[in-house]
């Protein structure tokens, strides 16, 4: 049989290897630096991409462009998150007013009890 025709086998091997890698990572995650975790993920994704290239299920020209698609979508996702967060940014104008009340209350109490409340 020709391996490149057995898509299911390729998927199984790729998934199996990724699963092994992930359990290894979670096993030593306490002692591993975070950057190593990220690099391991990149290695796993790259391995999958190379496997795709060799299996030639998707036309090669498309496969070569996949990393670029990935980076661009990551960038777009980031921008989207920034935009959404900016629109939903919680503000609290009431709090400034409440704070002024608290300051006045504190100043009154303190000056009546012998604490100097002049600010320079």
């Amino acid at each position: 049989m020709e391996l490149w025709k057995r898509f299911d086998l390729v998927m199984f091997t790729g998934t199996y290897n990724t699963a092994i890698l992930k359990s290894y990572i979670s096993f030593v995650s306490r002692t591993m630096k975070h950057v190593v975790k990220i690099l391991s993920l990149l290695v796993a994704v790259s391995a999958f991409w190379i496997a795709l290239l060799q299996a030639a299920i998707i036309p090669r020209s498309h496969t070569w462009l996949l990393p670029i698609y990935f980076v661009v979508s990551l960038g777009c996702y980031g921008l989207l998150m920034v935009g959404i967060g900016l629109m939903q940014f919680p503000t609290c104008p009431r709090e400034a007013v409440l704070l002024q009340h608290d300051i006045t209350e504190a100043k009154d109490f303190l000056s009546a009890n012998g604490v100097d409340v002049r600010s320079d």
Partner: protein
Amino acid sequence: MADEKENIGEKKYKYSIIIPTFNERLNIAIIVYLIFKHLRDVDFEIIVVDDGSPDGTQDIVKQLQQLYGEDRILLRARAKKLGLGTAYIHGLKYATGDFVVIMDADLSHHPKYLPSFIKKQLETNASIVTGTRYVKDGGVHGWNLMRKLTSRGANVLAQTLLWPGVSDLTGSFRLYKKCVLEDVISSCVSKGYVFQMEMIVRASRKGYQIEEVPITFVDRVFGTSKLGGSEIVEYLKGLVYLLLTT
């Protein structure tokens, strides 16, 4: 009184509140008043770590000690401005509580949230309770659009790179178990707000349970201090440092 305590079955904890100050003559008095107002039935002490303020902050603290008692307000000053991280370490030496709260002295952190920190910790037995400004019940006042944009962009970048497990990385209004703070602070080396980020990320990596509480943040000094290019560079350098060493 003793019967009441036995019936409730609760252990009484003591909280040490460390406040580093520099030229906060008026604000420290207001903060102390507000802490006493909002923590009426709580056993606590306030540790003021003043870095030799020229405006007479230490005199005000001494007046507050006359009013509230020297066992409730501790003045542990230093000769000159030596930085935030070392101020916490200095204050920790004198802390006799089971828990340590750190907060800013400029009234951006309001003591009215202290009960919610304490309640959250008692409910979840968390090692760290951190205040977050970026959730629905939280919020920020006093920032313009540009400042909000940089804050949000910085947050998204840090979340993507570091997976920290908290929504507000640079916040400095936190409650720690005393032993946890001692452990985390000994392994941090950064300065400024990167120090705050380093503390929470290292705590997260060490597996400590971290809970969040919404807080509101009123920035009254924003107009005077700009977020310039050098601050952004410092932040990015801090992110890369944290990425590689935590």
